[in-house]
């Protein structure tokens, strides 16, 4: 398929899902009321619902989805491994730990930026640990094992922090951090996370050429003029900033970074640089679709977003392992 056509198609799908996300919710607003809420002041209650509840939710859905798709594509390209994904490799889990430490110690109540900053720090530690454990030329098994180790450790520490909290709700909130949710997120969450996500995107999207060259391995890439140290820094910091900020406000949403680049790879001729913008758009579309799904399947209840992405993603992951059994293991 023509590349420009693919990008145009994905943009349209993402835009339509963004609009659909604005129109779904427990308040059951019909189209005229919804539009009035968005664009005029005639119905204050509808305006509140549309602008303060649904709009931030849709914006975050789009941005977080784009972040997960983009960072998944970069991680797969950089690690030269089709099973790389921020959640599988422990980046999201470590970011959750940072966020939990910020919230449950009361730090983020005093200093709101503490939330995204601590989450991003967690993500940075995870990626650096990953490099240390697995190296940049690691086989799949080593990589996945390193990811499991980091996720387990981060999850255990998160659970500990939550259980030590004097607040009775804290222990139950583990579900939010492990499975992710966009329910009742406000524009404050958007302002808190968007700048970091955008900075992360800027760092990741210039890696196209380097990722293409890395197809032939780090030695050849270096001989083609690619600065590997700069590439590593941009990949690490870009992933940590964007995924860290996304996790800080929505918890861990898994499998998007794994599935999206996989589905799109055949359509872009496996060219890593082309995969980047396509994965961002498709990631946005998938998270928006999942967020619409949780509101349709269980209206009024707080079904976690990660549940839907896991129901689709986990079998997909298993299928991948089976299909590439010989190469993967």
């Amino acid at each position, binding site marked *: 398929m023509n590349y420009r056509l693919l990008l145009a198609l994905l943009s349209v799908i993402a835009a339509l899902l963004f609009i659909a996300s604005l129109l779904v919710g427990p308040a059951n607003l019909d189209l005229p009321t919804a539009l009035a809420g968005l664009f005029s002041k005639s119905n204050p*209650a509808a305006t509140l619902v549309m602008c303060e509840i649904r709009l931030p939710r849709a914006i975050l859905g789009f941005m977080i989805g784009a972040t997960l798709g983009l960072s998944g594509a970069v991680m797969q390209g950089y690690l030269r491994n089709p099973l790389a994904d921020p959640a599988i490799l422990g980046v999201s889990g470590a970011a959750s730990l940072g966020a939990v430490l910020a919230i449950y110690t*009361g730090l983020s109540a005093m200093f709101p930026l503490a939330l995204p900053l601590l989450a991003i720090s967690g993500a940075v530690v995870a990626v650096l640990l990953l490099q240390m454990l697995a190296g940049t030329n690691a086989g799949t098994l080593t990589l996945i094992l390193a990811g499991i180790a980091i996720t387990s450790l981060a999850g255990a520490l998160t659970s500990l922090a939550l259980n030590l909290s004097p607040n009775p709700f804290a222990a139950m909130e583990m579900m939010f951090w492990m499975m992710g949710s966009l329910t009742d997120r406000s524009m404050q969450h958007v302002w808190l996370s968007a700048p970091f996500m955008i900075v992360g995107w800027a760092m990741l999207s210039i890696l196209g050429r380097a990722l293409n060259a890395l197809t032939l391995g780090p030695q050849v890439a270096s001989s083609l003029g690619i600065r590997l140290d700069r590439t590593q820094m941009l990949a690490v910091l870009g992933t940590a900033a964007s995924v860290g900020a996304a996790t800080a406000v929505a918890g861990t949403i898994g499998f998007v970074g794994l599935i999206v680049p996989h589905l799109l790879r055949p359509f872009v001729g496996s060219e890593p640089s082309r995969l980047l913008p396509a994965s961002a758009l498709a990631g946005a579309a998938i998270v928006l679709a999942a967020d619409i799904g949780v509101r349709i399947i269980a209206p009024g209840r707080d079904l976690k977003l990660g549940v839907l992405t896991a129901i689709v993603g986990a079998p997909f992951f298993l299928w991948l392992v089976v299909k590439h059994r010989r190469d993967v293991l």
Partner: protein
Amino acid sequence: MRPYAAAVAGIASWLTAALLAMTPARANEPPRRVVSMNLCTDQLAMLIAAKGQLYSVSYLSRDPEASVLSDDAKNFPANHGLAEEIFTMSPDLIVAGTFTSRASIAMLKRLGFRVEQFAPPNSLPDIRTNMKRMGELLGREKRANDLIAEFDHALAAVPAALQKRPLAALHYANSYTSGEGTLAADVVERAGLDNLGTRLGLHGTTRLPLELLVMEAPDLIIGGIRPSSSPALAYDTFSHPALRDTLRGHSLTSVPDKYLVCGGPFTIEAVRLLQTASHKLGRQKQP
């Protein structure tokens, strides 16, 4: 034959005596050593029991945010609802809630203790029922009847509702509300307000999405108080811009949890608080 029959009779009488010894005293004699395992039974027991009759209350009663009688509770040794702990206190009556840990209650019953469980009140009449029963169990019917009379008197003294009842929404952590069939809903209605949860057809304590709350534009939002020291995501909606805008510059009306969690004479205080807020709202609405 005769030695055999004598042996059987001996064993039978020994068994009977042992069983009788294990059976706790029935209601002929009022219990002398009562242990309460549940916050709500603690409060009722502390109000109704005679001096020296109540031996221990649960540790939750010492928490001033959860318990009205927190100061009184400090006079009693605290228990944590653990069977082993209570076993060593040798009570002759244990009072607990219907939701108290099933494992602990089962263990205590197996050990031969008398356990009486109280369901949480779902309405103001339920409070009367529980007080009356506590009085019967403790042999303090007169005290209970006095308290019930006070309760009714105080309730009647609450001023009448406004002509047009304002709409109130209960909003707790995690966007929960109390619908029909709950004590909180009954208190709200008795204070002269319409409860949003009831109006929307919700039963029990259940989730009310923020969107619906905002669309209904209630006149009054009643929230639980957020403990200052321990943060959690559960309270996020309290600072959500949509909620703040719905309040239109008023603050969240709060009724301290301790008045709504358990039912007792102190529940009237909750009714009074809401009634005052309702009237204030009515005066503000008038030009």
